[in-house]
């Protein structure tokens, strides 16, 4: 299957949006494009699995190469393995949902959908790129749309948050760039990931470059202490944007940290692993505790995202096959779950015009559907079996526990402890905002979800449950590649 399609579809969608005038047509265009993309993603998944069944053992499938800047060793080089397919699938789902959720967007709708599509395009390109240059290209391609989405359509202190987000993400990618150039120079002028993987950089070089690449991507996935863009950014962003932000863009970081840092610089990864684990444990527990104190629903979810992405980092840092698999699962799961959560918050906010849990209350009575969606999202994020979160977190725990020494054990226990704190703040938030007596008179006549919201939520919930009930399909998809990465470590 031709991977360039994954870029052509959004591109043509964007062009279509530019040409069209009426917002109705534009959003239709966007929806159609994203749904085609989802179809493509599923087709890709099937094609991949059939190819594997037919015994194709090459590391990356459906490779596509085109010399772009030959004299600099820069090329368009695409290819996918299980991990990237999982991410592509996630992206496609979230994009469809996000576009459906912003169906009513009237103010400058054209620009809005255009930016959404561009953002998604950046993600797709990032996940299929095997060339560090084009990967970096797509990584930065996604930054400015985020900025504009937040700054123009956001709420609250949107400009501050948008600037902060853009700058911190840019800083992250700047670090990544330094690391990449270092690898490029030492590996003999190549940006090709597969060649770099064979290059075996000397340990000193790895030690020098690893922090840049890892922390750079860490900023994207809100690693402590570079996570502060996340709460402000998420809370100021419009619904779809925060869905994309938390659902897709934070995953760029995790994916990059796993692929570019750990896989390409394995020895350094082992060297720095304790540090990573410490950071991750801090992020997990500290994020959770910080969440307990938040009053704003979006802040709650944003901080919980920090805590949940801590699991991704932890899984990566633990460097066992299971934990890495768990990290990818967690990325997938967190993407869907947090997107759903933000969607629910957005729906509430549209209607009640407040996100302060103090002011909300008793909404279950007037908007049962939305409240149920929020409940499901909440239960998923506190790791209830039957939802994706449980599977992912348990896999991470299991993988972490495989390292038998006290340090790793303690870190794992700290991480486990977070499930209690998570329960506390999730229930606090849900209880205060949805249950109890109705706080505000005008809540009594608020409408429940509309068709597009229902479809979108259903899509997300179904995919969450698909992972929650039958994790094995994704697990089997990821494990081989996780194994590959761990083998690179020489374990």
């Amino acid at each position: 299957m031709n991977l360039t399609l994954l870029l052509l579809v959004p591109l043509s969608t964007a062009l279509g949006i530019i040409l069209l005038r009426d917002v109705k047509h534009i959003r239709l265009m966007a929806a159609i494009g994203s749904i085609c993309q989802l179809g493509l993603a599923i087709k890709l998944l099937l094609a991949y699995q059939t190819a594997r069944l037919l015994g194709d053992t090459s590391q990356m499938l459906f490779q596509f190469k085109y010399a772009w800047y030959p004299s600099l060793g820069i090329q368009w080089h695409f290819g996918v393995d299980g991990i990237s397919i999982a991410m592509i699938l996630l992206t496609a789902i979230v994009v469809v949902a996000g576009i459906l959720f912003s169906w009513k967007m009237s103010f400058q709708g054209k620009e809005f959908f255009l930016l959404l599509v561009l953002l998604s395009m950046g993600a797709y390109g990032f996940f299929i790129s095997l060339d560090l240059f084009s990967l970096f290209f797509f990584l930065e391609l996604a930054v400015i749309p985020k900025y504009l989405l937040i700054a123009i359509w956001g709420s609250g202190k949107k400009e501050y948050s948008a600037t902060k987000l853009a700058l911190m993400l840019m800083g992250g990618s700047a670090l990544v760039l330094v690391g990449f150039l270092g690898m490029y120079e030492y590996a003999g002028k190549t940006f090709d990931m597969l060649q770099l993987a064979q290059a075996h950089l000397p340990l000193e070089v790895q030690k020098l470059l690893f922090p840049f690449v890892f922390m750079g991507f860490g900023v994207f996935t809100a690693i402590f202490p570079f996570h502060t863009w996340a709460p402000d950014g998420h809370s100021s962003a419009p619904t779809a944007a925060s869905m994309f932000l938390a659902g897709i863009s934070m995953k760029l970081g995790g994916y990059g940290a796993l692929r570019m840092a750990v896989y390409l610089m394995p020895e350094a990864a082992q060297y720095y692993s304790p540090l990573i684990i410490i950071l991750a444990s801090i992020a997990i527990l500290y994020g959770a505790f910080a969440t307990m104190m938040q009053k704003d629903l979006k802040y709650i979810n944003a901080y919980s995202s920090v805590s949940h992405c801590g699991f991704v980092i932890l899984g990566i840092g633990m460097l066992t096959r299971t934990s890495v698999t768990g990290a990818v699962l967690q990325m997938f799961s967190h993407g869907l779950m947090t997107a759903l959560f933000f969607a629910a918050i957005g729906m509430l906010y549209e209607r009640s015009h407040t996100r302060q849990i103090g002011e909300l209350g008793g909404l279950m009575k007037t908007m049962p559907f939305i409240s149920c969606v929020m409940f499901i999202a909440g239960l998923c994020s506190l790791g209830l079996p039957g939802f994706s979160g449980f599977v992912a977190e348990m896999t991470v725990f299991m993988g972490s526990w495989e390292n038998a020494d006290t340090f790793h054990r303690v870190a794992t226990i700290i991480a486990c402890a977070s499930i209690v704190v998570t329960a506390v703040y999730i229930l606090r938030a849900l209880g205060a905002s949805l249950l109890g007596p109705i706080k505000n008179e005008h809540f009594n006549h608020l409408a429940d979800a509309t068709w597009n919201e229902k479809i979108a939520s259903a899509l997300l919930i179904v995919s969450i449950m698909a992972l929650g009930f039958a994790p094995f399909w994704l697990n089997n998809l990821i494990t081989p590649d996780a194994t590959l990465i761990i083998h690179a470590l020489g374990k």
Partner: protein
Amino acid sequence: MLLENNLLNFLLVMLQELGLTAILIVLLFAKLMEGEKTSPMLYPLVMVLLLGHVLISFDGNTTGMLFSGMYVNTPLIGMEKGILGLGTLLICLQAGTWLKNHKHSTEFIMLLIATLMGMDYLLSAGNLLMFYLALELSTIPLAALCNFDLEKRRSSESAMKLILSSAFSSGILLFGISMLYGATGSLNFIEISRSFMGTEMEMLALIFIFSGFAFKIAVVPFHFWTADVYEGAPIPVTAFLSVISKGAMIFALTTMLYKVFGAYAAMWYNILFVASAITMTLGNLFAMRQMNIKRFLAFSSITQAGYLLLGLSGASAEGATSVVYFMLVYIFSNLGAFGVLALVSAATGKEEIHDFKGFYKNNPVLSWVFALSLFSLAGIPPTAGFFGKLFLITAGASRFNMPFLVIAALNMVISLFYYLKVVRAMLVEQQDEPLPTIAVPFYARIALVVCVAGVLLTGFFGQIYEYIHTLSLGF
């Protein structure tokens, strides 16, 4: 060399300069003929001629040496001249609106083209004397141009600042040249490069000459004139200063360092490192707080100069290529920005950032053009600026000087901050009466379309870079 006295070859080698001379003559006669008002045909005619001049520059076979090595032309130099010519053409097109109600429009174009010619000679100089003449030819008219808004205080102030400080700097430069002459006994580049002996006098000469270049390229701490001059000068002149003269000087510097001072590569690498680092940083810090867009663009161009030096420090074919490539991209991006600015200030006289609040409301297309140009300056994909900047850094990374890389990378972040400030003003913030819808005349439209096309597409056609690379390999 062999066919030196063959007229055809002579014409071929100097084709570009001769072309410019022809245009100048046309203008002169037009000036003589013209009565009350210049004929409407003149402007388009000159534009077409300039276009021709640009087009002939891009075929990479005008190569050769004249006047016993005083004049050298290589494909790469031809390319560079073409790029400068393209920039000048765009600037002339953008200047149309401003010139329409200016009584000395012909002189303006004349001076502009004279300057361009000086720069062409500068690039082709193979001899310090030639080099000095070309330099002055490309400086003195600029000062006159800065003063072109005769009645504006700031215009004449900027002209004064330019002429005085450039006189000073060329004095220093000349002192360096004289030392170089004293040390090596020759004015010819090639002979000079052959007869270095590593005396301190040579190093001193290098530094004096470098500082002369640094002045024109606006490298900290030789840059202070830039902001004031840019702010005061008429917008087309500012554009010219920030793009063309900077470009010409950086090309000349490439020749100077790679060809003449090749023996001192180790030394000037350090110079470039320090100069580039402080230039980027200070340029950014100054740009952060600017309120006037021209001034702001001045400082941003200082920062870009820092990146150019970074690429130059690569000391390799990649270095030269990346510099040329970046200048091409930089012309598109910067002239895109200046084009919009020129239109706005010609129509309303507003040049402050806060005037642009809510600009999107009435001028969506123009604001996208502006935003794209700024993103390109900031080096954000998918604009060409991203590629230009990345190639500069990649070329500079060849020494793998870690602190250098980190400084460069972090400065990209700082610069993003203030570029976003302008973008935010246009797209995000609102004000009660935003600027009215601004009419875009034909020529300006062409210029903007070219700029936007360049900004959006250049990066995706690797062939451009590869072509320059092949040229610069022989360089």
